[in-house]
């Protein structure tokens, strides 16, 4: 069992997964951010690999990625930063990025390196399920890494079942058919979708992502899934905050409210 699997074995509710872009706002902020998030008591951290053309992301994440690249962020640098952070925390870590980055690094080399620096899972939104199955599944599973696939309100039941079978950690449930940061409120259509998925009794836990930005939306998401993923809202907090540590503690505090530091 990797740290992600362990997490979900221990805790099925109110999972808070926070995404941030590595090397943002400053090149060396990756490790402090991981540690601050851990200290603030999030359950899971998604480390974004900054990318020049992040198709599945909204403007906030794109801008943070552009800034990080400009700061000098590279994959090698990122692996070093994560390895270093891993010395100080056992929080489950997921790396999120685009498949072109993996290809250029060399797929096998990339997966091994990911494992080596202490990362537990991967989200590669543009890796086709078919290719994963055909070419990468064996290696990834033999390394004990969890890959999370996305599902959306439009994903067919058949495909959701297939994804559930392939996933070995959690399923990333896109809250609506919109890219990150795009919508504010949770609608009846989304609730219906959450209920529909719940009724499917999937093997993997589900985290709801896209559009979660506040205590309220987080709470709603937790009612319908095992927890939620926050990205853009946190990036904005980092961008506008005094420093990484303060901004992180404050942000997580606002999301959790009563639960502040509950796992600390």
């Amino acid at each position, binding site marked *: 069992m990797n740290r992600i699997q362990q997490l979900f074995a221990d805790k099925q509710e109110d999972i808070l997964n926070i995404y941030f872009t590595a090397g943002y706002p400053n090149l060396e902020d990756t490790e402090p951010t991981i540690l601050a998030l851990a200290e603030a008591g999030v359950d899971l951290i998604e480390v974004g690999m900054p990318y020049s053309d992040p*198709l599945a992301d909204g403007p906030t994440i794109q801008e943070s990625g552009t800034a990080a690249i400009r700061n000098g962020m590279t994959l090698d640098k990122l692996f070093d930063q994560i390895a270093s952070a891993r010395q100080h925390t056992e929080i489950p870590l997921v790396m999120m990025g*685009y498949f*072109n980055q993996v*290809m250029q690094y060399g797929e096998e080399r990339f997966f091994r390196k990911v494992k080596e620096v202490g990362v537990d899972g991967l989200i590669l939104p543009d*890796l086709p399920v078919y290719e994963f199955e055909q070419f990468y599944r064996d290696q990834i599973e033999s390394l004990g890494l969890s890959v999370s696939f*996305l599902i959306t309100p439009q994903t067919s039941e058949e*495909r959701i079942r297939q994804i559930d079978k392939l996933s070995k950690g959690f399923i990333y449930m896109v809250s609506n058919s*919109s*890219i990150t940061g795009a919508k504010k409120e949770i609608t009846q259509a989304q609730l219906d979708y959450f209920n529909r998925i719940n009724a499917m009794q999937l093997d993997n836990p589900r985290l709801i992502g896209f559009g979660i930005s506040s205590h309220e939306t987080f709470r709603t998401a937790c009612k319908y899934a095992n927890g939620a993923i926050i990205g853009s809202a946190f990036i904005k907090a980092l961008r506008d905050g005094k420093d990484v540590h303060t901004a992180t503690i404050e942000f997580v505090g606002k999301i959790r409210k009563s639960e502040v530091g509950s796992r600390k």
Partner: protein
Amino acid sequence: MIGIDEKGYYGEFGGAYIPEMLHPNVEELRKAYVGIWEDEAFQKEFRELLRDYVGRPTPLYYASRLSAKYNANIYLKREDLCHTGAHKVNNTIGQILLAKRLNKKYIIAETGAGQHGVATATVCALMGMPCIVYMGEIDIERQAPNVARMRMLGAEVRPAKSGSRTLKDATNEAIRHWINHPQDTHYIIGSVVGPHPYPDMVARFQSVISEEMMWQLQEKTGKPDPDIAIACVGGGSNAAGTYYHYLNKEHVRLIAVEAAGHGVNSGESAATSVLGTRGIIHGSRTLLMQTPDGQIVEPYSISAGLDYPGIGPMHAHLIASGRAEAVSVTDDEAMQWTYYLSRMEGIIPALETSHAFAALDHIEYKPGDVIVINLSGRGDKDLNTFITHYDKYND
């Protein structure tokens, strides 16, 4: 045999590297497009619009003065005479008919030179459908007449302000828009790029070019095949149309002309086949310009339609396999050819198209070879650029 396999690959290139949010749309297309293409009613409507609205067949014109100068038999495939002024409309006619069959209500598109944007806005007006076109901020400036035309046609032009603010970024924005509006919206991609089935679908719509070339050459030369077929490659749609029926005729040399910008090694270039490596861009495994770390490089060309860091997977395959020869042409050469062709044949080409002509100075050929150059578009959209640089190139 060169062709696409059932997974959407040309050799090792192609596929559909898309986020899950786009999966239903792309799947719907993938499942439907061949059936629609092969449907008789579709073909009838498509062909009728190509004839009566677009103005097909476009002529195959024997350029006698150019032929004399170059000691070859040079024919120009006159896509510049298509309604809206470039080959792009062949594809948008096809896609709008397909979108209607899929019951789509809204159309989005990206555009570089603005020709695809205009061609999309045009078919949307024709069908009474709302249309949003994404266009890089830099391209909005350098292709102002096409921005005006899109507005006249009732389309909304949305500036792409990220990255190099050119075609790549407009494409990113269009894809994002589609992710945000997956239902009822069809995304009309303007070249043989993007996730499968786009490259194949667009190539089929453009294949009318080489279909016509075959009977036109037969009429004029007694043979359906040229010795050499030349086209510029931005994403590669006019080239795909030019090559299509010759892909498996090895005796027809295929020349793909890319934009070298200030020079292939100047750091300001869009010569993908030379500078590119294997990777993924806009949902497709292909050749693209990128850093060793996999960041896509911001390309440069004076020509907005070639200012793109990738090429369609068909072309990546043709070049990697040696089936097609790639030629890189600088801004300077393209500009010179613009003035030259205008004076020699009375045809002002689009800046993209000028690149194709410059290949004549790069390739070897036998005297008397039959060479077809795809005159992909007219230069009206580029007049400002031509006039601004006039004195530099004319004395």
